[in-house]
């Protein structure tokens, strides 16, 4: 587990075995950009940032990811558009970029 890391601007960030950030507090915008290239996203557009920033703010407030229904409602994107922006989907793509930890339980 500890073998997986991501180095961003010389800072080494440990990842869990699914590639999620282990210490969500260490997140910054460069981290999102580094994750984006792994996800096959060539450049983060304002639409990407709208989703990432919403997830980030929601997480900092609630310590959990929002429902996808809520994400769509608040950002104005449909689920299909979210998948177009983040090919791995809202959880494995968008939440990972926003530095949220991997969800647990039956999810």
């Amino acid at each position, binding site marked *: *587990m500890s073998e997986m890391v991501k180095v961003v601007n010389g800072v080494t960030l440990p990842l869990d*075995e*699914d590639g999620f950030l282990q210490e969500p507090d260490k997140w910054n915008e460069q981290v999102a950009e580094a994750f984006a290239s792994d996800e096959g996203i060539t450049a983060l557009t304002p639409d990407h940032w709208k989703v990432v920033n919403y997830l980030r703010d929601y997480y900092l407030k*609630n*310590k*959990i*990811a929002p*429902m*996808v*229904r*809520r994400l769509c409602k608040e950002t104005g994107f449909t689920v299909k558009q979210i998948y177009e922006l983040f090919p791995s989907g809202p959880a494995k793509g968008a939440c990972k970029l926003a530095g949220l930890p991997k*969800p*647990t*339980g*039956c*999810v």
Partner: protein
Amino acid sequence: MSQTTLAPPETGTPEPPAPAKRKYPWYVIKPREGERVKAFLEAFAAILRYSNYKPALDQYSRSSMKCSSCTTNCPVYATTHDPRDIPCYRSGLLLKTYRRHFTVGGWFAAKVSGDPGLTEAEIDEMADVFYRCTACKRCTLECPLGIDHGLLTHLGRWILSELRIVPKGLEISVIEQLHGETGNTSAIPAHALKDTLEFLEEELLEMFGIPMHYPVDEPDREFVFFPAVSDYLLEPETLMGNLAVIHAAGDAGNWTIGTGYFDGINYGLFYSDHVLERTIAKLVGEVARLRGRKALIGECGHASRSAKEFVPVFGGDLTVPVVNIMEYTLRQIEAGKIVLDPNIITEKVTYHDPCNIARSGWIIDQPRKIIRAFCPNFVEMEPHGRNNLCCGGGGGTVSVDEIHEFRMSVAGRMKADQMRATGAKYVIAPCANCKKQLKELIEYHKLDTKLVGLHDLILKAIVIPGAKSPAERAAAERGE
């Protein structure tokens, strides 16, 4: 009960240079390394001493375990034709250990034949095969000797878990549920729960044009509600359907959600009676705190079965009746309190029976009666009901990401074929485990169908006097 090994991993103690790590088929947080045979046998002995598995094992271990009638019913074996997937081969590994180490005859026979007893390799094999079983118990329908292979899978996993050989996907959630700050498997803080409920209330107001509320921490109510906690992250429509039904039935003042504990999930059912017992204690404790009279379980097979079967076993003085939300909803329909519009869900629908509520015969007809009340185009999968096929993610395997490919191409393959054969637009699965697995199967096998909960469809079709009609709501959803 035996000593648990569930406490979070120790930190700070310097470790001796570790020998080469063992490989498990899935990620394990911190298994016991080195010599495990003694620890396995000690855990087995403790469980036998403090539980009532012994009479069952005494009886089971007298049979040959070679008849293999179960092969005709196991969806995993039917796909792999691999001998290690034969239910009685798998059960035989545990029973052989029992015979050799815990029966006089078996001990003597081992001495005479020079059998060295349990080996490290056998422990590795058990770790592999016990998680290739989805504990769906379909094999029990065909066993002429009445052996409950699902129970033996559970017992085998329990002993392994005492060596901390348990998939991380399960253990990490249980650590949070029993020791963590939030006290639930998805780590949802109470304030986030309330925030989500407010969001759902706003959605319902927009949809129906009338206010409906999720009561929180209300004492002295008939029902205290426990859905699979993951519904609060993933299943807004199921939860809104639950509220719409309760509201329309006139029970708005008869139920509550408790912020002290609001998770129906009990992974103990999958791998440890010790976890099972402690999780049941949390559930009955919350009902008692709120002076509720019944536990109402949401759309979830294992949550329902674990509560139904084990609240009476482990609930002690706090034991309360357990009701599944589908039983509740059917009762309201039959009492004429709920009206569903039969012109809304006109597409073909089918129903997947979650093993945990169907195999025992508990919940089979209730959802079908509800569906027939408003879905004119209902078709069955074959086989179904008590004889259903597992979604392929049962027994907790759905939470183990490392075996995703196994769940998709082996354990769930027959289920994917079954869904495809119905040609249904909607597959209804009233279970958080099954929902996750079936959604992944639909994506993996590129099926042209949508996975929904039963209350998701009820939400679309329910008629509430004074609120917007189902047709108006459908039009609004289409953006008209």
